[in-house]
């Protein structure tokens, strides 16, 4: 850009002639370049918008911020005590399934909610139905052992060769007496195939 000198109409006109277009030619060129750069932001942000869904999932997974539960804590857990739970699996002798706990035992605090699995396989060449019945040792422990979810007492039909994991979710009540330091939970599966057909 040229500097305007003294105020003089004649000079001003001359000056304008030199600078015929507004904005000046050189400015126009510059402006086009800026325009192109700025326009580029638009598709970039559109792409960014479209990629927000996978991005969120990735970032949250990487940072491990996936649950609101971090702040919601179970205040009913008695951290001062441990109870050992042994898991035992029995089959009624008329039965030819494989049945065993995935974990043989766990140590839990009274009040804590825990899930374990039992695994069953139907080794017979045809579909069979079984039903499990629980029992505790010592017997008294049954009073304090609360099952939230269990596969017992309901009919379980397995196809030939099928394997299934069956969860048990439970907690031991806080008021369990100190002297019960360990509990054995045992399940016994009965063959109820005929019965199931009848009903």
């Amino acid at each position, binding site marked *: *850009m*040229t*500097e*305007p*000198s*003294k*105020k003089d109409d004649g000079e*001003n006109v001359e*000056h*304008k002639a030199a*600078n*015929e*277009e*507004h*904005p000046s030619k050189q*400015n126009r060129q*510059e*402006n086009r370049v*800026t*325009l192109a750069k*700025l*326009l580029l*932001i*638009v*598709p970039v*942000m*559109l792409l*960014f*918008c*479209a990629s*927000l*869904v996978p991005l*969120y999932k990735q970032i*949250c997974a990487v*940072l491990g*911020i*996936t*649950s*609101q539960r*971090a*702040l919601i804590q179970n205040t009913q857990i008695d951290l001062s005590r441990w109870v050992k739970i042994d898991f035992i699996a029995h089959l009624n002798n008329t039965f030819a399934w494989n049945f065993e706990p995935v974990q043989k035992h766990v140590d839990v605090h009274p009040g804590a909610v825990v899930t374990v699995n039992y695994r069953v396989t139907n080794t017979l060449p045809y579909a069979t139905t079984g039903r499990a019945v629980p029992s505790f040792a010592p017997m008294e422990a049954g009073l304090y052992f609360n099952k939230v979810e269990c596969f017992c007492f309901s009919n379980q039909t397995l196809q030939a060769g099928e394997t299934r994991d069956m969860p048990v979710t439970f907690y031991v009540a806080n008021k369990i007496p100190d002297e019960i330091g360990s509990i054995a939970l045992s399940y016994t599966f009965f063959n109820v195939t005929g019965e199931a057909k009848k009903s």
Partner: protein
Amino acid sequence: MAYTNSTTAPASAHDHSHADGHDHDDHGPGSWTRIFTTTNHKDIGSMYLWFSLFMFFVGGSMALLMRLELFQPGLQVLQPELYNSLTTVHALIMIFGAVMPAFTGFANWLIPMQIGAADMAFPRMNNWSFWLMIPAAILLFASFFVPGGAAASGWTLYPPLSIQGGLGLDMTILAIHILGASSIMGSINIITTLLNMRAPGMTLMKMPMFCWTWLITAYLMIAVMPVLAGAITMLLTDRHFGTSFFNAAGGGDPTMFMHIFWFFGHPEVYILILPAFGIVSQIIPTFARKPLFGYASMVYATASIAMLSFIVWGHHMFTVGMPAAGQLFFMYATMLIAVPTGVKIFNWIATMWRGSISFETPMLFCIGFLCMFTLGGFSGLVLSIVPVDITLHNTYYVVAHFHYVLFPGAIWGLMAGVYFWLPKFTGRMYSETLGKWHFWLSAISFNITFFPQHFLGLAGMPRRIPDYALQFAEWNMISSIGAFILGFSQLLFVWNVVSCIRSGEKAKAKQWEGADSLEWTHLPSPVPYHTFETAPVLK
């Protein structure tokens, strides 16, 4: 900042006749039909300002209809469906139709003059970005009359409501698309003008604060408008083309929309306030007769507000069940924004400190801005606290918060700007008496309207409802009375502006003795149609 003029009289005091066939004033300044083809930044600035004044009254009438319904419990004048449409369209009109175009209007008028440029960088695109707004506005109005009525999902367009709505919603989405395109074009124009067309000697750090705030705002707009466009396009395909971005029945996630929307939405609320910061930063030093305190820190504070605004969107969705780590992050990030905002508030106060202040109407509006905007910032801080927000979210407390930042913030900033620059634009003075009446009536009735809404929110009144429980009756009645006074006192403003243009006293070239930007120091009042055809030289 001291500018010296190399010419003895204002450089472009005389109106050059443009027989040399410039493409930017086909019809010349005289004929009104030039509004369709004009590429003159002053014409377009005025068109933007008139358009937004009109939209301000349309949006305001909708607000008064709602306050009429809320005057008493029970349903008296509006059906709930229409009420919901009114909350939605009121917000959209005020944001996209009133506040944003008004800021753009000022940008068009002032930026070329303040940096010593002849016009905007892309005059023809400038004309387009104005005219695009008209079909968008028509779409929004017309949507009230199609089956199913206008969008009733709230301005945030949350699914599933926005997926279920009728034709009105499609029209709204289209309108927002058009307005978004218009804003992007406007922003590109502003950035290019500011970066490439400054007069020799006008370095970036010498630009008036208004130019700075607009530079930053324009970048914000280019960055987030495409995100909004993306979000509403996904809504549209969910509605019509069987996609399931946000449709839970197809495996989509409605909260995803909220994340995307607020990634746009929070920067958007700063788009609505930063140019007002700029206007206030010009006016307060003028009437305090002291230079702006901490100019550089103002620039940096504005830039940091803009950058932080990208990482706080989660504070609008604390209740969606986000992970605790997310809540904490968004809470602290939100509180952090109060720091640069505080820097600005303190700088304005420090500018006034020991100044010889006079209280003309523009200054009154700026002081009102300072007090009330700060209150709104405080209620924002209250809302940023997660456990508090969980009880206050979607209550009238939030309504009070954003009206405190938007009415005395954005709107008063604009009003102050109009009173301040009207003598420059028109060459005539407005009536101080009327202006002061306008200010005091607005200030008092604004607080009557919105202060009680804090109480209502704290007591648990939800927002966006046409009817409410009886215990909220008294404060609602007071709020409605305030709203009507507030609404009707804005007519004083129109009267003042119109009578100023028609018959105001002649204004001086430098109407305000403390003003120091180029339009005051280098140009006469009214400013001629073409200014700074040759760039001024600044030292």
